[in-house]
C-alpha cells in the first residue's frame, strides 16, 4: 500500500496510521501521506480501468492495508455536459455537472463514509458514529448497516424531516441534539475522546476526507484523462474543496494526467459564509458564524479546513463567493429546468455561485467548468415549497382548456 503515515498539515509532525486526527504538538489537522515513488503511471491506469465501477477502482490512492470492500460501493456518478444551462447563463464556457446525488444514499458523503467505514473495520472498530448536518447521517447509517457495524448518528434536532426519516430507516441510533451543527460537532469531539468508537469525521477524519479525492479522479477519467479548467464546488468544512485539489495534484505528480491545476471557485450561503468572508477580507482566519440559511448541509459556522480552502482559492486564481437564500432557490430551479437534475440546497448554492461567475464575465469561452452537485433535491423539498405551480382541474377537457387556454388534441 502507498499510504505511509499521518502528517500534521501545520508543523509536519508525523504519526502512525491509527485513529488520530489532530497533532498533539500544535493541534493542526493530520493528513494521510503516501509514497507514490516507483508507481508506474501506465500500470496504475490499467488497474483503474480494469477495477470495479466505483471508488474502489482507485484503491492505489486510498489509505488501506488490504483490499477495501463495501457492499454499497459509491462512485462513478454521471458527468453531464450542460449546454442548456450554459445557454441560460449566457456563457460560452463548457459547463459540466458532476451529479453526485447519484450515489447510494444520494449525496457525495457516500464516498467519504465508504472509505471511513472500510478503515474503521481495518482498525478493528465495532461501532461507528458521526456529527452530521443530514447527508452524512444517511450515509453512516446505511453503510454501517450494510457492513454489519453498530452506529450512532448525532444531528441538530431541527434537521429537515426527510433527512431524519432517511437516516432512522437504516436502524441506527439517531440522536437529535438541541443546538446547531457546531454544537453537535463539539459534543462528538468530546465523546470521541471517551468512547471506543470510530467517529468518521472526528477521529477517523484523515481517512474519511480521502474519499473526496475520488471526485477528482472520476472527473479526470470522465473528461478523457484530462483536467477541467475550473471547478465550482460547495464549501462547508472545506474538506471536499481541498481534497478535490489534492486528487488532481496527486495525479499530476505521478503523471497520470498532464496540464495545469484548475481554478477553484468555492460556494457558500450568505447565512453561513465564514470562508467567503475571510476570502473577501484578504485573511485566512475564518471567524466562526452562527448559521442562518436554508442550506443546512453547508451550515458549518466553524469550518475545520477553512484556512486551507481560502489559500487554495487564492493560489489557483479562484475565489470564494456566497449567495442569498433566494439565489439558492433560483439555482435549484435553474439546474432542474436546464439539465433535469434536481439538487438539494447545497447544489443551489453552487449553481448560484456559477451564475454569479457567469454574470461577472469570469467564465472564459471554451473553458471546461466542472460543477460539483453534492446532494439530492428530494431531501430538501421545503426549500422550494413556496415556489411551485400546481393547477387542479375537473376531469373534463373543457376544464383543462379553461385553465390552460389551448385546444385539446382529439
Amino acid at each position, binding site marked *: 500500500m502507498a499510504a505511509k503515515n499521518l502528517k500534521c498539515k501545520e508543523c509536519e509532525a508525523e504519526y502512525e496510521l491509527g485513529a488520530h486526527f489532530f497533532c498533539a504538538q500544535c493541534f493542526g*489537522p493530520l493528513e494521510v501521506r503516501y509514497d507514490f515513488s516507483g508507481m508506474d503511471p501506465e500500470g496504475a491506469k490499467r488497474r483503474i480501468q480494469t477495477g470495479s465501477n466505483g471508488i474502489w477502482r482507485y484503491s492505489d490512492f486510498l489509505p488501506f492495508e488490504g483490499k477495501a470492500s463495501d457492499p454499497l460501493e459509491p462512485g462513478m456518478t454521471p458527468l453531464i455536459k450542460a449546454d442548456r444551462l450554459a445557454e441560460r447563463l449566457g456563457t460560452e464556457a463548457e459547463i459540466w455537472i458532476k451529479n453526485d446525488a447519484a450515489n447510494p444514499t444520494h449525496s457525495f458523503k457516500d464516498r467519504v463514509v465508504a472509505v471511513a467505514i472500510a478503515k474503521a473495520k481495518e482498525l478493528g472498530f465495532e461501532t461507528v458514529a458521526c*456529527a452530521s448536518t443530514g447527508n452524512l447521517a444517511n450515509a453512516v447509517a446505511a453503510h454501517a448497516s450494510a457492513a454489519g457495524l453498530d452506529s450512532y448518528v448525532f444531528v441538530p434536532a431541527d434537521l429537515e424531516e426527510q433527512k431524519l426519516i432517511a437516516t432512522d430507516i437504516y436502524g441506527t441510533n439517531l440522536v437529535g441534539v438541541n443546538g446547531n451543527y457546531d454544537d453537535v*460537532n463539539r459534543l462528538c*469531539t468530546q465523546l470521541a475522546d471517551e468512547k471506543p468508537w470510530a467517529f468518521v*469525521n472526528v477521529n477517523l477524519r484523515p481517512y474519511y476526507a480521502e474519499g473526496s479525492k475520488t471526485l477528482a479522479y472520476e472527473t479526470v477519467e470522465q473528461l478523457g484523462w484530462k483536467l477541467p479548467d475550473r471547478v465550482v464546488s460547495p464549501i462547508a468544512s472545506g474538506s471536499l474543496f481541498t481534497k478535490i485539489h489534492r486528487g488532481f495534484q496527486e495525479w499530476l505528480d505521478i503523471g497520470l494526467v498532464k496540464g495545469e491545476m484548475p481554478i477553484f471557485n468555492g460556494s457558500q450561503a450568505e447565512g453561513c459564509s465564514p470562508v467567503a468572508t475571510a476570502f473577501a477580507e484578504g485573511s485566512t482566519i475564518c*471567524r466562526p458564524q452562527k448559521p442562518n440559511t436554508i442550506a443546512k448541509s453547508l451550515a458549518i459556522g466553524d469550518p*475545520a479546513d477553512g*484556512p486551507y480552502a481560502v489559500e487554495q482559492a487564492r493560489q489557483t486564481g479562484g475565489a470564494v463567493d456566497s449567495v442569498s437564500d433566494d439565489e439558492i432557490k433560483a439555482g435549484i430551479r435553474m439546474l432542474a429546468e436546464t439539465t433535469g437534475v434536481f439538487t438539494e440546497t447545497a447544489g443551489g448554492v453552487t449553481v448560484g455561485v456559477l451564475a454569479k461567475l457567469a454574470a461577472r464575465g469570469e467564465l472564459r469561452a471554451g473553458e471546461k467548468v466542472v460543477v460539483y452537485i453534492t446532494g439530492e433535491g428530494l431531501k430538501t423539498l421545503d426549500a422550494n415549497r413556496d415556489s411551485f405551480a400546481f393547477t387542479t382541474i375537473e376531469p373534463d377537457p373543457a376544464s383543462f382548456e379553461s385553465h390552460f387556454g389551448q385546444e385539446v388534441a382529439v
Partner: protein
Amino acid sequence: MPITVKIPSQLRAATGGAPELSADGSTVGEVLDSVFEQHDDLKQRITQDGELRRFVNVYVGGEDIRYGEGLATAIDDGSEITILPAVAGG
C-alpha cells in the same frame, strides 16, 4: 471557587496525565496563564506568540470564546473551560 479546565486525552502528557486542572482568574486568558505556570509544555502546544493557535477551540460553558471576547472573555468562579481540537467535522 476555582475554575476547572478540561484537557483532551492527547494533551494529558503535558499535564502529567491529569484530565482536568483547577486554576483561578477573572478572564479565560488569566486562567490559562495560571495553568501554564504549572504546565509550561501545555503553553507551547496550544499558544503561539501569546495567542491561541489557529486550530485550538476554547469553550466556556459550551460557548466558543470567539463569540465572546476571546482570551479576554470574563469568567465566573466555578465555571468550566474546555479545550478541544478545531479540526473535526464536515
